[in-house]
């Protein structure tokens, strides 16, 4: 297992108290797996990505842990994490267009990063860098360029190369394609797959609100809703036979391939996601779910319905009945004061 996340909870400090943006989330990432992480904005998908690499001062780890290649990531220890960034965990940020410092040449930026990581043998990294640039069709003179001289697509690709240069075990790609046109989106997606195939990156999490992109690049897809995981399965299972009512609604509302649908309000399902300040107990999709019943006032477990297919929904668990192995997240027990009998 490349990455194991157990009961991860992440909160934002705010004046109305802590807001738990990610609530007791558990999932695993196999070696070589590209996992898509999808959900509406505010569902917590980017928060997971940030928590795994850099917690900004407003964020705090509220519980749980993450193991990378069997070793626990020191998520709240910034100094210890710094050494692991880029080398073990890396990020292609949402803001790739503006991520490159404007007043230094690309080559200089890379050199400074290598120096920060105390890498002695820079020639070796450099020749590897040149090989990768060639691979994706960029000339090595790009290293003497400034960010503003590059087109959006070039900047995006340079960012991916920089972030994966030291062969991290996990690459978090946050909305990498959202600012690009369709053909560039495809190229960037293929680049991720290529890099994975060549072993530049061991595994990746592609965070997006755009399911149609994930259909092209991801091996598995995880759907988030209001800070919790709703469903995780192979890409084929999610796109062709989704089980969670929320996933079904998402897939049904999916427009033509490649069309953006940020902040989708689900047509056909009235309402909006609950506030995370004082989230309701039980299933958070309950208010909007056409299949909700009394049981839904309790928090549904993220249960493995079939091998490799996990869903957090009482109705689905019932239908798929006794055979289901129910994994009870520890966090669910912690808040079981309000949701008695979760594990039944």
């Amino acid at each position, binding site marked *: 297992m490349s990455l194991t996340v157990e009961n991860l909870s992440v909160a934002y400090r705010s004046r109305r108290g802590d807001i738990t943006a990610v609530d007791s989330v558990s999932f695993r990432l196999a070696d070589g797996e590209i996992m898509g992480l999808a959900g509406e904005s505010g569902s917590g998908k980017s928060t997971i990505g940030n928590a795994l*690499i*850099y917690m900004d001062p407003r964020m705090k780890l509220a519980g749980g842990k993450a193991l990378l290649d069997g070793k626990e990531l020191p998520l709240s220890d910034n100094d210890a*994490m*710094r*050494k*692991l*960034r*880029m*080398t073990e965990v*890396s*990020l292609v*940020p949402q*803001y790739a267009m*503006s*991520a*490159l*410092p*404007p*007043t*230094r*040449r690309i080559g200089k*930026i890379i050199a*400074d*990063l290598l*120096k*920060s*990581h105390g890498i002695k043998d820079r020639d070796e990294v450099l020749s590897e860098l040149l090989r990768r640039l060639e691979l994706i069709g960029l000339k090595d003179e790009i290293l003497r*360029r*400034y960010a*503003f*001289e*590059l*087109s959006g697509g*070039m900047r995006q690709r340079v*960012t991916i190369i*920089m*972030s994966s240069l030291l062969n991290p075990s996990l690459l978090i790609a946050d909305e990498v394609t959202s600012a690009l046109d369709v053909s560039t989106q495809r190229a960037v997606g293929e680049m991720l797959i290529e890099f994975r195939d060549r072993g530049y990156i061991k595994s990746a999490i592609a965070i997006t609100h755009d399911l149609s992109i994930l259909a092209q690049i991801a091996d598995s897809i995880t759907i988030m809703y209001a800070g919790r995981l709703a469903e995780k399965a192979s890409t084929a299972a999610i796109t062709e036979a989704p089980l969670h009512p929320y996933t079904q609604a998402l897939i049904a509302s999916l427009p033509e391939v490649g069309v953006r649908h940020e902040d989708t309000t689900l047509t056909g399902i009235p309402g909006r996601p609950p506030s995370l300040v004082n989230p309701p107990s039980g299933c958070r999709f309950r208010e909007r779910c056409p299949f909700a019943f009394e049981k839904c006032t309790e928090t549904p477990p993220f249960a493995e319905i079939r091998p490799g297919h996990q869903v957090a929904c009482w109705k689905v668990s019932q239908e798929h009945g006794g055979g289901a192995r129910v994994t009870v997240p520890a966090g669910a027990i912690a808040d079981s004061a309000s949701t008695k009998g979760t594990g039944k």
Partner: protein
Amino acid sequence: MRRFLSRKLITYLIAFVIGVTVDWGIPRLIPGDPVQAYLSQFRLQPAGYDALYKTMSEAFGTNGSAWDQYMHYWQSILTWNMGVSIGNFPARVTTLIGQALPYTLALLIPAIVLSYILGNRLGAAAARRKGLDNSVLPLGYVFQAMPYPWLALIIPYLLAVVWHVFPLSGGYSNSLLPTWSWTFIGSLLTHWFLPFLTVFLVSLGGWAIGMRNLVIYELENDSSRYLRALGARERVIRRYAYRNASLPQLSGLALQLGVVVGGNIVTEIAFQYPGLGKLLYTAIGNKDYFLLQGIFIFIIIGVLIANFVIDLVFISIDPRTRLSMQGAPA
């Protein structure tokens, strides 16, 4: 780069034309006759008045059509013939400006350069250290808020009147004649220090606060976040932030020149320092319009030259201006 510079040069040219036009137009637009206003200071016989009025109007260029007057004015500026000072008759306006200029430059250039460099360093340090920030920030605001005339009064009050560390006013000691002796140079320096300190201090706070805010902002922007996410050391991230922040600070310097020049004038007057500011003040007192016009146009030229110098520095640190010729894709 060529495009950047040519744009700038056009702006300078237009500024110069507007400056000259304003300089020419103000005495003519404002109600009343400047020559008459000047002559009314004296008790003159009617015949003498008429003769003087005629001579002065010709010299001042207030006779003839507006267009002729305007062209005449341009001619006198381009030939650097700004006429004769009325108040310091028969000294030429250009001579008087030439005498005052070294004093003004000696105040302005060190004050601007040092306050800029030191202020930026201080601001960047304050952005790094909370403890330092707690004293730099409030002090910076106080210095920024101080009126030039006030600082130009309390500094000499403390350092010249209460404690006799520096001389109170003037450009050099009255008992000396300008010679290249060590005594005279020493006198120049001690007289120079307090007005310099005034102009320096008022600017210092602004640069420190500006740099502090910019660095803090830069440390939170996307490129810093990215460097942080890739595990760059905090020292490296700060270095990038400082470099990015230097650009707006430098364009701020160009924009601040006018204010500092104005402040310098006030300071010179308070210290009776024999620079352009004091000359301007004397010209106002004497209703010496030739001198007034000459100084105004000269200050405009000076500010334009300084802007040009800043542009050149800007080009050397901002790749965007340097490379905009190469037609890179946006």
